[in-house]
């Protein structure tokens, strides 16, 4: 947190090293979120790229009110939402199988991880975007409900409701045996 404040302070003074450090620190988390929500690796990379370029354009005027990670994750979430609004449903989710490139724990582990993540992405795609977004931010990125509420500019009750309904729906989908 303190490190992020200092990085932002240096970034606002035009430090490329500070920006590089921010990028290195959060790039994988941001890409993970985008991949989970979009199920398309190349599109996810484009979105993370755009978020960082846009963030770089705020050098000198950027004001951090919450956490930097929360801010960047929310930027990715907003862009994914905008993209989904524009895109028709039939185009979504054609190449999710190729989205994961892990840190190579062995071919068997990679295959299992890939299949499991693909399964989760399929399930999340069946939820309303707002619900899956809250679930992923909370469970994958360990953001507290209060942080998510602040980042999304909604009340904490709304965030908790989205989370609860999302989990219930996931449970219902899985218990109905829709997914194999």
């Amino acid at each position, binding site marked *: 947190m303190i490190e992020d404040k200092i990085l932002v302070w240096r970034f606002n003074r035009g430090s*490329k090293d500070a*920006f590089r450090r921010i990028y290195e620190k959060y790039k994988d988390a941001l890409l993970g979120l985008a991949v989970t929500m979009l199920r398309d690796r190349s599109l996810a990379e484009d979105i993370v790229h755009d978020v960082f370029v846009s963030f770089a354009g705020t050098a000198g005027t950027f004001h951090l009110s919450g956490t930097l990670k929360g801010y960047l994750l929310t930027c990715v979430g907003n862009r994914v939402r905008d993209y989904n609004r524009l895109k028709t449903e039939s185009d979504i989710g054609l190449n999710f199988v190729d989205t994961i490139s892990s840190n190579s724990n062995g071919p068997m582990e990679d295959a299992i991880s890939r299949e*499991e993540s693909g399964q*989760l992405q399929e399930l999340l795609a069946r939820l309303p975007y707002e619900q899956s977004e809250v*679930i992923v931010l909370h469970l994958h990125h360990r953001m507290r409900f209060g942080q998510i509420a602040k980042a999304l500019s909604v009340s904490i009750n709304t965030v908790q409701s989205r989370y609860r309904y999302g989990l219930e729906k996931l449970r219902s989908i899985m218990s109905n045996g829709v997914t194999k």
Partner: protein
Amino acid sequence: MRPEEDIENFVRVRKPRVTTSEQMDNRTLHDSFAAMEQTIQVKSTKYKPSVLRNRRIRLVAAAAAAIIVAIGLFLGRYRHTPEIPTTEHREAAQSETILISMISMRMTYQRGGFDALDQQFRDTLDVLGPRSSGASMKDLLREINGS
């Protein structure tokens, strides 16, 4: 454990382990640095403060600095009067001036964090400029206030 029994755990363990490619890193950093440079360039060409405004800020800052210094000196003297028992002497600051600066910086940080500190640095540089640090308080006050 079946997924239905622990849906949160089911989601948690299926977090995708993705890493960015070197190609993506290069492209993103290159474009981001370009965006940073452009922003900083635009800012530096846009920033033309009016003389009047600058002068006002200088006067206000100088007056504030003079008041803070005066209060600090007054308190410093008052502390050494025999009526008030002095606590254990600590060499935390080498002089009253440094101590006042430290107090001022701490108060500023408490008020507005790094941003407020940064603003104070800027205001200080605006007022004092590249003057010698050896200049006495009296000389500085006379020079800044013009009297």
